[in-house]
């Protein structure tokens, strides 16, 4: 009987989209040869936001874990990189990976605390935890206390021989991390974990009743996203070459903007955070010098989106045309003669 059924993952739209995506990635990989230094810096920023948005989207959109404290892991990643490179003599790139690993490890006790809280209390709890981190690092005098520290010149030279070479390397790392974040969400969603996470997103009690260990699933998602967020945080500050508690644990830069991006683009998809990031940077280029009006514009757009299209730009598009660019769904195709369903 089973040969009558086939399960298809990709669609024509997804095959076209994946080919285009591959071309865009190739073009982006060559950017150090065709783009100016200013453009490269902005692309690095875009890539880090794509990565952060993928992670927040995974956490909130699938795990149902609406965190407003992901800056805890951005800052932790950044500080760990600086500490490991400066005091332990770890080469910067190795320190980057270790920083992500440490962020994931720290996420374990953090989860044990935060998971005791539900809904809004969870959100506030994550923010409080991030504040505790910020205050803690502000006390660490070896790391410059409240005013922070710069990466010593010798270590900066360790990254690459010249400033352009360093910037190109950081550019490729940022592109690689954005792709890794997208790839991580993509592979997770296509796996058994993806079934569990999407089910939890839609109904936690029903997931439990169907055998899904919801606590364990959310825990794994939380720790994995924390690790990737820490890795991205480390890269952000490797580019900036300077870190301070307020910059590292900024709720507006590393969480509020990221939530804006995910809400605008569309929660619960891979496409949404990418679209949201592009929209956000377009808005910023357009309106950044409007001062307070710029923030009001962003807030207004976010509120309007939540009211008119709660699933964001991609939610509207994908529902309207039943589209998915990243093939994560499972479509059943019945071949051969159709049996009477209720024989």
């Amino acid at each position, binding site marked *: *009987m*089973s040969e*009558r*059924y086939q*399960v298809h993952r990709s669609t024509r739209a997804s095959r076209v989209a994946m080919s285009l995506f591959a071309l865009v990635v190739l073009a982006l990989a060559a950017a150090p040869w065709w783009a100016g230094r200013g453009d490269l810096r902005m692309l690095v920023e875009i890539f880090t936001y794509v990565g952060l948005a993928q992670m927040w989207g995974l956490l909130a959109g699938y795990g149902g874990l609406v965190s407003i404290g992901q800056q805890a892991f951005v800052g932790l990643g950044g500080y760990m990189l600086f500490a490991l490179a400066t005091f332990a003599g770890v080469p910067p790139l190795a320190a980057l990976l270790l920083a992500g690993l440490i962020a994931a490890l720290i996420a374990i006790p953090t989860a044990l605390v935060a998971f005791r809280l539900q809904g809004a209390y969870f959100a506030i709890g994550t923010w409080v935890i991030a504040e505790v981190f910020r205050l803690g690092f502000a006390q660490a005098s070896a790391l410059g206390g409240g005013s922070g520290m710069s990466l010593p010149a010798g270590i900066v030279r360790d990254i690459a021989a010249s400033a352009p070479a360093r910037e190109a390397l950081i550019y490729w790392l940022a592109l690689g991390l954005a792709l890794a974040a997208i790839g991580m969400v993509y592979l997770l969603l296509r796996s*058994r974990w993806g*079934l*569990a996470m*999407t*089910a939890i*997103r*839609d*109904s936690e*009690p*029903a*997931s*439990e*009743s*169907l*055998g*899904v*260990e*919801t606590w364990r699933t959310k825990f794994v998602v939380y720790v994995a996203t924390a690790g990737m967020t820490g890795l991205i945080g480390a890269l952000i500050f490797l580019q900036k070459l300077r870190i301070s508690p307020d910059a590292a644990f900024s709720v507006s830069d590393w969480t509020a903007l990221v939530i804006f991006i995910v809400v605008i683009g569309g929660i*619960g998809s891979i496409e949404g955070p990418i679209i949201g990031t592009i929209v956000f940077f377009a808005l910023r280029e357009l309106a950044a010098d409007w001062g307070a009006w710029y923030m009001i514009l962003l807030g207004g757009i976010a509120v309007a989106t939540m009211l008119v299209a709660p699933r964001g730009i991609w939610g509207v598009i994908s529902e309207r045309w039943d589209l998915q660019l990243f093939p994560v*769904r*499972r*479509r*059943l195709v*019945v071949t051969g003669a*159709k*049996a009477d*369903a*209720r024989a």
Partner: protein
Amino acid sequence: MQEILKLDRVSKAYGSLTVTDDLSLSLGAGEALGVIGPNGAGKSTMFNIIAGGVRPDKGQVYYRGTDVTGAKAARRCRMGIGRSYQIPHPFAGMTVYENLLVGAAFGDDMPRGEGFAHAAHVLEQTGLIDKANVRAGTLTLLERKRLEMARALATRPKLLLLDEIAGGLTEHECNDLVATIKAIHASGVSIIWIEHIVHALLEVVDRLIVINFGAKIAEGDPHEVMNSAEVRQIYMGLEADG
């Protein structure tokens, strides 16, 4: 007959409202048990206690001889208890087929290929195959109820709990549903079915219990129970749509 489920004097209260009152129950393997009782009598709560969504204040739940009173719902599902919700809880953003895959992958740890085939088979069995690739959020209420049963079946349960799935069906649809449940029963699955559509229930079940104010007030041969004076009195209002 071997016992598949036993409730031993379970009680549950929400505040001052006793919803399950010193309830005991035994179900043999392969048996089909019907449950009736007025709205608010505590029938769905009894399912929550059996499936693990609600922990009783007092008493024990045994499944195949194991005390599962403290076991989480997910574990009980993997042990073989499959349930439907009276108020459907579809995974609205997933397709109907993916809804079933969740059950197949986690409720029974089926390997991928087997799970894919089993879920498709259940869709045919429950008449949902034409909706396989439709997002569950777009289903009508009746289709959602059918999805509840299909999803529970996808976990390959040994004990199936059905909570009011026949309401609102046409006579023809109801006959189809009865035939489907009979076939599931015939394949060896134990069933507890809460249902207001009594004539449908009586076609399937071997035994009937009546619950009122959280307590079991009658039990036995379905027709005898239905004809008892006590049940007629309590059940008067509901008999009309049966």
